[in-house]
């Protein structure tokens, strides 16, 4: 059957509502991949030896640190927007002006949380 199935992503003009919604899914996938990396890191610590050395080398390399930064960014966004979703599930903030404002608040929160995490990491 070739009837159109939702979501029709290509049909709509990008707006803050749809963009954040798509980003929520995208960051969710990124974080799921991060969960693989985290589980592997815990296992590598337990295994030790060359396995840990290789993992540590990969994670502390420039590429690894950039991925790690992107990952904290994704976490900060998914966390902020997830809280927004939980409010919606409780029936709060569902009118359009509030939805648009909370969307901007999510972006601000994302930037602040990411900055806070890296400031703590770099200063400590």
């Amino acid at each position, binding site marked *: 059957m070739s009837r159109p*199935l*939702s*979501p029709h992503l290509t049909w709509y003009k990008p707006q803050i509502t749809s963009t954040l919604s798509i980003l929520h*899914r995208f960051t*969710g*996938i990124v*974080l*799921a991949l991060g*969960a*693989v990396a*985290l*589980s592997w*890191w*815990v*296992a590598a*610590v*337990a*295994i*030790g*030896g060359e396995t*840990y*050395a290789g993992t*540590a080398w990969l*994670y*502390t390399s420039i590429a*690894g640190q950039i991925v*790690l930064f992107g990952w*904290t960014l994704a*976490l*900060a966004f998914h*966390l902020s927007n*997830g*809280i927004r*979703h*939980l409010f919606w*599930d409780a029936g709060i903030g569902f009118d359009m002006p509030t939805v648009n404002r909370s969307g901007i608040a999510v972006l601000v929160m994302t930037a602040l*949380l990411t900055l806070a*995490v*890296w400031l*703590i*990491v770099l200063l*400590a």
Partner: protein
Amino acid sequence: MNDKGKNRQDDAPAKASEKTSAVDASSAQKSADDSAVDSHNEAREKQPANDHQDDDAGEDGNEVIKVERTPTSPALLSQLRHSNHYHQARGLGAGRAGAATFRVQRLTAMALIPLAIWFAVSVVRMSTASQAAAAAWLAWPVNAVIMALFIVIALRHAVIGLQIILEDYVHHEGLRAVCVLVVKAIGLLLGVGAVAALIHLAL
């Protein structure tokens, strides 16, 4: 008067055919001299009157119609349960397990709010640590327990989220089922593996 009646008579068959009611058309022709509107009303009033046992029911507005409550016969229920239609319909539709998945996704989300903040700060810091330092840090029971909680709950949340995405975008039913199973298997493997590693470090 005569002219009026003729005009109305001309109108009547058109109206009747619109309603596609044979009774309306015949009664309209019978009372050709009367106004067509009246004949319509008559037909409407007569039809339900034939089925009514109690003619006074319509006039007395305060009368309460009492219907005897009939319990569903168990024989009928078992007949339904053994019918093919029941087996075909069972498990389909909204009543499957959607609500449970929805609830688990929200509960894990709430649990992950404090866990994620703890995790983001501590693990990015630990990523540059030596193996001995990382092992010692993970061996501390509080860290081990919070880390185990975070990994298990995050994986549960991730598997549901990925399953929902797969259900949205993978349209082939068989392929979708395989993808969901693979995601669940990987999630389970990672969760058990990470917890086993944490136990190994703590001992």
